[in-house]
């Protein structure tokens, strides 16, 4: 029995290690490739050990860009991506928490209808409504702007639903106590509901930031100027070069850089996340 358990545990660990290797290997390759000489990679002679070009490759990537005609430093792309992702994450949270507040705490005509309309938009992601959305954004002269990048993606049925579910678990007595304490609807929202939703907001922020960061199709359509490019679009453009060699180390360095902010957000928010799970008392 005991031996049996031991073997089973080894098997489990081996499977887990294989899984980790499958996930981690491409990342490792990307890191390694970003430190090598481009000629080596192009010849298919890439070493599996880090090369010696780390500083020059990253310097060029961040501050200069590729040597192609539409060069753009990756630092600028990252800034664009960051602004877009933050606008989307913060905007989505703000809009959805407010609409959830309206739906849960106010009695107004067609409340349930509005709720269902919001619910139905779950079935209409950007890809489905891309033409009308593009038309509107272009008519509003928001092409090549941060507003154009973020605004159409801000409405979120999922987040609204999430906040709605959360608000419904908040005891009614808290609202009543607030009313007796002289807090109006805005005060109750600001002083009680927002602080209570902090952990929900943190969790959502992580998810939405990554979602915003990884947007590809929409930024590709809406941005034409190189200085408004986001990093995800930028990587793609670096790979498809017409008559020059793809600069793989720079592509890989950009990919590595593109991974950093989401990783940072996850690591930074994890504490709040876990604390939120532990302190669930209302």
């Amino acid at each position: 029995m005991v031996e049996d358990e031991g073997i089973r545990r080894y098997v489990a660990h081996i499977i887990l290690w294989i899984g980790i290797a499958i996930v981690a290997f491409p990342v490792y390759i990307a890191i390694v490739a970003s430190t090598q000489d481009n000629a080596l990679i192009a010849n298919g002679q890439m070493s599996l050990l880090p090369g010696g070009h780390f500083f020059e490759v990253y310097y060029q990537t961040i501050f200069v860009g590729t040597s192609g005609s539409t060069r753009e430093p990756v630092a600028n792309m990252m800034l664009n991506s960051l602004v877009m992702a933050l606008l989307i994450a913060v905007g989505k949270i703000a809009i959805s928490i407010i609409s959830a507040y309206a739906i849960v705490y106010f009695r107004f005509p067609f409340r349930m209808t509005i709720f269902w309309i919001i619910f139905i938009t779950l079935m209409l992601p950007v890809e489905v409504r891309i033409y009308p959305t593009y038309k509107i954004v272009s008519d509003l002269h928001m092409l090549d702007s941060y507003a154009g990048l973020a605004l159409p993606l801000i409405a979120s049925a999922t987040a609204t639903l999430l906040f709605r579910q959360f608000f419904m678990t908040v005891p009614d007595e808290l609202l009543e106590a607030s009313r007796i304490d002289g807090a109006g609807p805005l005060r109750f929202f600001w002083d009680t509901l927002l602080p209570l939703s902090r952990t929900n907001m943190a969790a959502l922020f992580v998810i939405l930031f990554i979602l915003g960061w990884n947007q590809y199709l929409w930024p590709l359509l809406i941005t034409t100027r190189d200085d408004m490019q986001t990093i995800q679009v930028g990587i793609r453009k670096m790979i498809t070069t017409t008559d020059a060699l793809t600069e793989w180390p720079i592509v890989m360095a950009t990919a590595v850089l593109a991974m950093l902010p989401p990783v940072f957000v996850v690591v930074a928010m994890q504490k709040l996340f876990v604390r939120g799970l532990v302190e669930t008392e209302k």
Partner: protein
Amino acid sequence: MANVTLRNVRKTYTGGFEAIKGVNVDVGDGQFCVLVGPSGCGKSTLLRMVAGLETVTGGEIDIGGKVVNQIEPADRDIAMVFQNYALYPHMSVFNNMAYGLRNRGMKEAEIKTRVEEAARVLELTAMLERKPRQLSGGQRQRVAMGRAIVRQPKVFLFDEPLSNLDAKLRISMRVEIRKLQRRLNVTSIYVTHDQLEAMTLADILVVMNGGQVEQVGNPLAIYEKPATTFVASFIGAPPMNLMSTRQDEIKSQLGGSASEAGILGIRPEDFVITDQTPSGGVALSLTVEAIERVGAETFVYGSRAPDEQRIAATPGELPPGEVIVRIPGTEAPAIGAKIRVAAVRAKLHLFSEDGRKRIEA
């Protein structure tokens, strides 16, 4: 300081359900009024109407000489203690108490004085910086009380504030609430389903059933002269024994006009185990079925011949034919023994056939 007057107060929900069917209660300045009744009787709804958390669909609620039907809860000058305390989980004890004062734009120095004074009275001084989740149930209860006290309102409203506490704590908090209310001398309305809490706390007791007031008055007066069979069986534990007077055994003993009443009630403690029949009183033959010894007293559950006449049982009433007798001490007859119990004339309660009216014999 204020009196609270309810004039023919009604509450009908949009579905047509009538939760409160015309209630008239007058609570004098500084009095402690307890609303008691079984769950669903409308007592909490009535309290929430006084608080302004439920709309009033008929009648008037008057606090301190002003009709408050249309006034927001915050402007009624009331403070409420909730059953689940409803403390703000993310605020410290201090801020929980200070919140209502800050919203009223009170000066921070004055807030500090008031909160610290309340904390001193409630022995919370050492916990002012803690969050509610770091407190025990009893301490949370105190914070909820503190939040009410610092406001220095005209009226305190309590919605079953002790029902989340364990039995021992409930008793000590009950005493504290009463002491506090006496000292602050603030008019209070208190909702409970626990008749013992109701009896011990109330200056005025309001017994409610089905959205109506069954009886209003001094708790002891209600205990001694319940107006209906509902009150008779609800107030007092164990409940009053109710039996039909149509049966020969009782009818013959009652005699005269008393035998015209429909229902006879005798409290368990008014029975004595004796072979004699007191003149004008009632004696019953019982078979002992169960014994409950609680230390200072013993409850004897006996059965009589089946009481076919008494079917309309009120809530909390014993099954017809069963009789509880309370005897002091722990000496009790054996199970299965045949005993005779008797009650004197002065201890008999007579009610009309439908139980809605008390008859003075």
